[in-house]
């Protein structure tokens, strides 16, 4: 009760101040208009109903309350990491914490007031949290993001921390701040100083249009944000989660089979961890530590995001099966890659059921093959609309596994050279040929690519080697070409 009465007094005083200012500037039409713009909107209407108007207006509009903490001692190098750690501390007080580079945090505390007490108490509690960490901090609470930051940056010389809950008092309190607290660029601050502006109050009184022209629209926008007239969305800090479990063995493990057994419960827990978070992983890393020498690292890549125990076990077993332990293993650590949300496409709920019948899904098959044969050994091909035969196709390692392809739905664009014979096999590089071929079809002239330095000018034929010719695929149907400049013959493909 006491507090509310005090706040009401403050609001009244502020309203009177605003009204006095408005009256004093009555003669100058342009200036009084700007006072309207930047002073609290209720101020000009204040004289008629003295007390309640500003307060109700303020209470209604203060949708958010921001606590800003500035850590002046954070150095550039470690600020990023430190702020992320501090975010984890701050998340005790609110679910919304945002990092303000270079060295500040913003906490939205309006939502926490009901549980964690009035703003002053909450503010003091958060301050106490930094004190326990022995971090020098300057803090402030205000109804807008920028205002809170500016109050925090300007420092609390008096020792009392700034806690402003009421929107109506905000312009008046902001007016006392020096303009340096905005952390605007040196040029902008110098322009302002040249104009004789050193305090925020003087800045707020300037005409809006002129200010936008002299500084920039962004500066005017900053003022609007500070006065809570414009929203300033912030990105909430979300901690990165990973699964990590370390396992020390009582006796050293020498065979992979035992290792697999020991891994089973760990994978089970990993799958559980992922299920609880409705997330999946695409990479896993298993580190095996030995008594001496470097640790053995097993890196696992999955073909698609998953949280299924069966698939994780499958891939791990494949990788371990090919592993030769250089030395007995003392401990192991399983660490997941970044967690990714499971989408409907990566959820294979029914695949798990069908699994009892020994059936897999395509991603499972691909990752099992890749785990054993290597990432590069399993790939797809695409055809590219290009005239040069060697440039008309490409390997793809990112396979379209996740989405189902309806039958009859054509994804590949029709290719250049439609209707012309193309061989099933293409040689990596054209092979010089001796004479003595029987040309059956052709020529098909391909002349292209002069623009990128790998131009070709060739006449392609379908040919057959005569039976009995030495050192040639006998009786085979071949795709050969004659280079038009050198008149030499090359073998480029085989019709298999």
């Amino acid at each position: 009760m006491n507090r509310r009465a005090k706040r009401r007094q403050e609001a009244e005083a502020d309203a009177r101040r605003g009204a006095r200012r408005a009256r004093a500037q009555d003669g100058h039409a342009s200036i009084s208009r700007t006072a309207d713009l930047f002073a609290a909107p209720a101020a000009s209407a204040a004289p008629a109903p003295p007390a309640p108007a500003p307060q109700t207006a303020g209470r209604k509009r203060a949708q958010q309350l921001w606590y800003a903490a500035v850590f002046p001692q954070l150095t550039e190098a470690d600020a990023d990491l430190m702020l992320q750690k501090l975010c984890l501390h701050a998340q005790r007080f609110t679910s919304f914490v945002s990092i303000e580079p270079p060295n500040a945090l913003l906490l939205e505390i309006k939502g926490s007031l009901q549980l964690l007490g009035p703003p002053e108490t909450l503010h003091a509690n958060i301050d106490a949290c930094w004190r326990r960490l022995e971090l020098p901090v300057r803090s402030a609470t205000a109804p807008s993001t920028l205002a809170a930051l500016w109050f925090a940056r300007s420092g609390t010389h008096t020792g009392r921390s700034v806690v402003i809950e009421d929107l109506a008092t905000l312009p008046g309190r902001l007016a006392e701040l020096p303009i340096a607290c905005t952390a605007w660029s040196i040029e902008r601050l110098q322009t302002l100083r040249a104009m004789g502006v050193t305090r925020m109050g003087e800045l707020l009184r300037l005409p809006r249009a002129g200010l936008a022209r002299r500084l920039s629209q962004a500066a005017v926008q900053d003022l609007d944000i500070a006065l809570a007239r414009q929203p300033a969305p912030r990105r909430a800090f979300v901690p990165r989660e990973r699964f990590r479990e370390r396992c020390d063995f009582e006796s050293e493990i020498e065979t992979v089979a035992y290792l697999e057994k020991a891994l089973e419960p760990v994978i089970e827990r990993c799958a559980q961890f992922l299920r609880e978070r409705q997330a999946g992983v695409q990479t896993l890393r298993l580190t095996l530590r030995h008594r001496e020498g470097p640790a053995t690292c097993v890196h696992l890549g999955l073909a698609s995001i998953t949280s299924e125990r069966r698939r994780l076990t499958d891939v791990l077993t494949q990788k371990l099966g090919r592993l030769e332990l250089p030395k007995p293993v003392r401990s192991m650590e399983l660490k997941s890659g970044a967690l990714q949300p499971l989408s409907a496409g990566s959820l294979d709920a029914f695949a798990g059921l069908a699994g009892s019948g020994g059936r897999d899904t395509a991603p499972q098959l691909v990752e099992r093959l890749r785990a054993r044969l290597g990432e590069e050994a399993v790939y797809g091909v695409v055809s590219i609309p290009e005239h040069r035969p060697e440039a008309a196709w490409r390997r793809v390692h990112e396979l379209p596994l996740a989405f189902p392809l309806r039958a009859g739905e054509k994804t590949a664009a029709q290719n250049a050279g439609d209707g012309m014979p193309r061989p099933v096999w293409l040689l990596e590089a054209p092979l010089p040929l001796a004479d003595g071929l029987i040309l059956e079809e052709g020529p098909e002239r391909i002349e292209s690519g002069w623009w990128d330095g790998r131009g070709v000018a060739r006449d392609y034929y379908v040919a057959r080697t005569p039976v009995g010719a030495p050192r040639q695929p006998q009786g085979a149907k071949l795709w050969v070409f004659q280079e038009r400049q050198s008149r030499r013959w090359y073998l480029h493909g085989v019709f298999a």
Partner: protein
Amino acid sequence: MPRDPSSLADILADARVWKLKDASAAPARPVWSTGSGSLDARLPGGGWPTASLIEVLLDDTGLGEVQLFLPALVECQRRVGQTSGDAPWLVWIAPPHEPYAPALAQAGIELTRLLIVRPASATEALWAAEQALGSGVCAAVLLWLKGTDDRWLRRLKLAAEAGGALGVLFRPERHRFESSPASLRLVMSKGEPETRLDLIKVQGGRPGPVELGSP
């Protein structure tokens, strides 16, 4: 496979059981046309049998051996896709050269469902083939090998039966006189002017040379 044979129909539905008597009648398993009328006529059911292993023996590539299977691959991608909703995969393991994407697209193969595997050794190739055949997501698996033993072929055959896939194994002709569990074996050799095709083992049919009509 300790499966309890509950009825005669179940046993007959099993692809490992074949009846000599009505070999020409349509079997329960789908067959895919070879694209050649004269060859279809010689095969039980009138096409390449699925859920089984086919062995093609030839010494050199370029005899139209892949051409022999392309119509079947296109057909099974289309037809299986229609029933299951998702087009099935084709897996080519250790092909002798790079499969040329424009040619395959021209033939009508869905390239986004083609997987090419390049294993480092023959054992790995066989392992990959077994995995792919048994996975149930592949409609056909084509495997090129220099040589292998009987035991592995048996495993491939079992995997093909379990996964319901069409398994095709390309091997050099010198393996012609070795025993093989494949349900269909054919030898391809050069001829004047056409490639000669010789069926040396046909489960449920008669072996003998086949005249391939001009495509």
